[in-house]
């Protein structure tokens, strides 16, 4: 096995550089090193100005997402050795403005996430529970896969529709929105449908499905979006047949 591998790291400071560029760094190829370990080696040993996000190093915080050789990856879970003989091209996630090097501005996603109300909603006036809610394993299984989303936004980077139309609510927000609808404790499905059934809700999705392919947590946002299209359509016909009554 080779003992070194080259990384080509995208570098960009919007205030200074006209164009992003790639800087090449040679790093030791250590067994079990991830791409994130190589980036940290570069930052510690070779060039302290390289900028990227990370925190947990165990695929749970969702902050180390980047595009590695053209594919969206959590870099803390991506083995260097899988890319032999190299070089490995590391770029920031697509479709978000780059703040610096590999760090993107997530404001747009944060705004969308909040819009879909990803928290338990109880109807005003619903009786206060006198004890904790009981949930059966079956009820948990209803929403479990969607609750595994870690907001890493690899899905937004992989979604060509979001790239074309930034108004699209997008995969992760849809998955997390459905997660609460499917929760037996929640009563907010109507409010969320109001958001998702709007023109810039789920309708732009053309079921390309890349979101579900790149998800490191095996969430299926594409399915969530189609479920929302069905709910929105049911509600629409109901409203057509019984105006006002069904809403």
């Amino acid at each position: 096995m080779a003992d070194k591998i080259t990384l080509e790291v995208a570098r960009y400071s919007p205030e200074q550089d006209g164009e992003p560029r790639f800087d090449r760094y040679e790093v030791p190829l250590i067994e079990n090193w991830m791409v994130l370990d190589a980036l940290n080696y570069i930052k510690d040993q070779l060039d302290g100005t390289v900028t990227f996000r990370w925190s947990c190093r165990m695929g749970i915080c969702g902050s180390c997402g980047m595009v590695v050789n053209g594919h969206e990856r959590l870099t803390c879970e991506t083995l260097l050795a899988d890319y032999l003989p190299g070089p490995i091209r590391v770029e920031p996630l697509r479709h978000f403005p780059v703040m610096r090097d590999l760090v993107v501005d997530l404001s747009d996603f944060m705004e969308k996430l909040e819009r879909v109300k990803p928290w338990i909603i109880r109807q005003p006036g619903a009786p206060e529970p006198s004890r904790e809610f009981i949930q059966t394993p079956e009820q948990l299984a209803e929403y479990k896969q969607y609750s595994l989303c870690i907001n890493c936004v690899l899905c937004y980077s992989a979604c060509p529709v979001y790239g074309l139309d930034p108004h699209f609510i997008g995969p992760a927000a849809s998955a997390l929105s459905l997660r609460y609808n499917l929760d037996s404790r929640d009563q907010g499905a109507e409010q969320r449908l109001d958001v998702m059934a709007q023109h810039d809700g789920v309708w732009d999705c053309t079921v390309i499905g890349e979101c579900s392919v790149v998800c490191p947590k095996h969430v299926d946002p594409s399915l969530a979006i189609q479920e929302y299209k069905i709910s929105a359509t049911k509600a629409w016909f109901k409203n057509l047949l019984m105006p006002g009554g069904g809403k």
Partner: protein
Amino acid sequence: MARRSAESLPWSLFGAGGFMVAFFFPIHILLFGILIPLGLIAAPTHTGMLALVNHPLTRLYLFGFCALGLLHAAHRLRFTLSDMLRLKHLDTLLGVLAYGAALVGVAVTIDLLI
């Protein structure tokens, strides 16, 4: 709060058309494109076929098959053009053209079947 979109209508027709085309189209191709021409099953007689097509239920089926298939195609065309050629800003125009063409096809279908 902005209104819920009326996109549900074309989308449900698109879904129904997709089902019709995916499910029944292969059967038609298999019967009339492969099995009958190859002589693997006997060709129906002209009078037999005519009697079948003249039955109101067959006509209803053919109407659903053609009309929904056309609306399915229109929806797909609208999104393919708007996404592939980056014409999102012309979405309304594309919709009018695509669904309009499909509706013309539906009118022709009705004319042929009645």
